[in-house]
């Protein structure tokens, strides 16, 4: 039996790897391409700043944009302090490896919970038990729970990456543990924490299921007035436009998808930019 020459084997292996890579990129490029092509024509100033009219068949998507913004801001306001405190406790204080392992397991599981389960959980806890009703508050808290694992994990990684010598120097200068965390650890972990938070924001902005039962309004052509108000949100609005309202111009659907996609991608790029900026500056 003849064996293939090493050079040929090399070629074949390279081609397969290259094809696999291409296969990953293609669908992404295709989705973005289609949405851009069909949606770009719809996106203009009026689309972004006007209320929907004629049962969402005309006008803009302002309330959905504002709603998504409120939900995401609320989610971060809730999840960042909580997640950061937990991360600081786990990484700087807790020496008990059993607790650490339990929490890590909990985080992994939390991250694996399907988003529709978060939605139902939010419905039961925040809407029902706490009587917040379907509201921005309930939706934000639900989204906040969902992004908590991302925030805790990335904050812990960022804290663990700060060299031990920073803590040692600070303590040897007579700083308390808390001062050491505040002045010698947190500032240097901030970029990583920020990156994780922004990734969480991107995720929260795009999810439908968690807001479905907890906040999302089908059609509410006004801006929310308080955190106990219902609100429209981009992902749910897109779902409604695509499946619940007959005779919507495709342009409007694609335009909505484009806005949502742009927000999510922008967040991801921002996270990448922050990370690479600080990685280039970092010297330890």
């Amino acid at each position, binding site marked *: 039996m003849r064996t293939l020459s090493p050079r040929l084997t090399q070629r074949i292996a390279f081609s397969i790897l290259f094809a696999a890579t291409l296969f990953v990129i293609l669908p992404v490029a295709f989705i973005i391409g289609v949405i851009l092509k069909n949606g770009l024509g719809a996106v203009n100033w009026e689309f972004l700043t006007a209320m929907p009219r004629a049962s969402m068949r005309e006008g803009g998507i302002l309330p959905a944009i504002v709603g998504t913004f409120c939900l995401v801001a609320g989610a971060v306001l809730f999840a960042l302090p909580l997640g950061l405190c937990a991360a600081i406790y786990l990484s700087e204080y807790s020496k008990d490896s059993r607790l650490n392992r339990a929490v890590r397991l909990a985080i992994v599981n939390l991250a694996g919970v399907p988003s529709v389960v978060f939605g139902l959980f939010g419905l039961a806890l925040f809407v029902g038990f706490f009587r917040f009703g379907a509201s921005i508050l309930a939706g934000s808290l639900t989204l906040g729970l969902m992004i908590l694992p991302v925030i805790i994990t990335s904050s812990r990684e960022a804290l663990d990456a700060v060299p031990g*010598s920073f803590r*040692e120097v600070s303590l040897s*200068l*007579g700083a*308390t543990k808390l*001062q050491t965390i505040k002045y010698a650890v947190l*500032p240097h972990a901030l970029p990583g924490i920020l990156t994780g938070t922004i990734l969480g924001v991107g995720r929260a902005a795009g999810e439908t299921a968690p807001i479905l039962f907890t906040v999302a309004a089908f059609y509410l052509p006004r801006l929310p007035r308080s955190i106990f108000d219902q609100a429209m949100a981009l992902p749910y609005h897109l779902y409604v436009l695509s499946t619940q309202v007959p005779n919507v111009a495709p342009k409007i659907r694609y335009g909505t998808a484009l806005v949502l996609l742009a927000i999510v991608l922008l967040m991801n790029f921002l996270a990448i930019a922050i990370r690479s900026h600080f990685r280039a500056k970092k*010297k*330890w």
Partner: protein
Amino acid sequence: MAAPILLTESLNLFYGNFQALKNVNLSVAGRRITSIIGPSGCGKSTLLRVFNRMNDLVEGARVTGRVLLDGEDIYAPGTDLLSLRKKVGMVFQRPNPFPISVFENILFGLRVHQLAGKSKDRLREIVKESLESVLLWEDLKDRLNGLATNLSLEQQQRICIARLFVVRPEVLLMDEPCSALDPLATARIEELMQELKKNYTIVIVTHNMQQAARVSDDTGYMYLGELVEFGATQKIFTTPRDKRTEDYITGRAG
């Protein structure tokens, strides 16, 4: 000789079951340079870190015996660790300024001790004094806002020394402060130590016997956790009493 500033009495230190310091009795005189030499792993760093109680951070580390600083037992219950560490500053083996500006590095200790509320001019004055005492002011006065981590290793180590001064220490502990530096930089740091000795008490750990002979007034030789011999540097290096010391300084051991 004046009363010792640092004194250990029957000092033992255990890392779990391992005894790293064995019945160490050492007295460090004020405004002198005391060097600790000995082979790797004999407990030099451990001894140094007894003096600012940095060993407390090691889980399972236990100390018996007494350690007196200015006559007060720093291991007595109720000792204020924060003011102890203000009094006893430490310079580490690898220069380790924070990756922030020179200015902020120097003021780090101040920030921690909340001596804040000082005017911008006053802060600059403090930074100036600190940098002057390590002979860096002229070099860096126009680069105070630059990253400290971009400086040469020697300059970084000087900054680490200067950063101690803002909290007004009495004792400077130096754990192989020159081991990351080239010979020229080492010589200049040694010169600086002679300068600092006028105002501070210095304890230096070094692997480098020539360095100990050059810079220090007193020398202690450690071996396997014991302080084998301690005395005036000149005596230790010319007429050691203990066979083990002699073997080490003549290069037959270690």
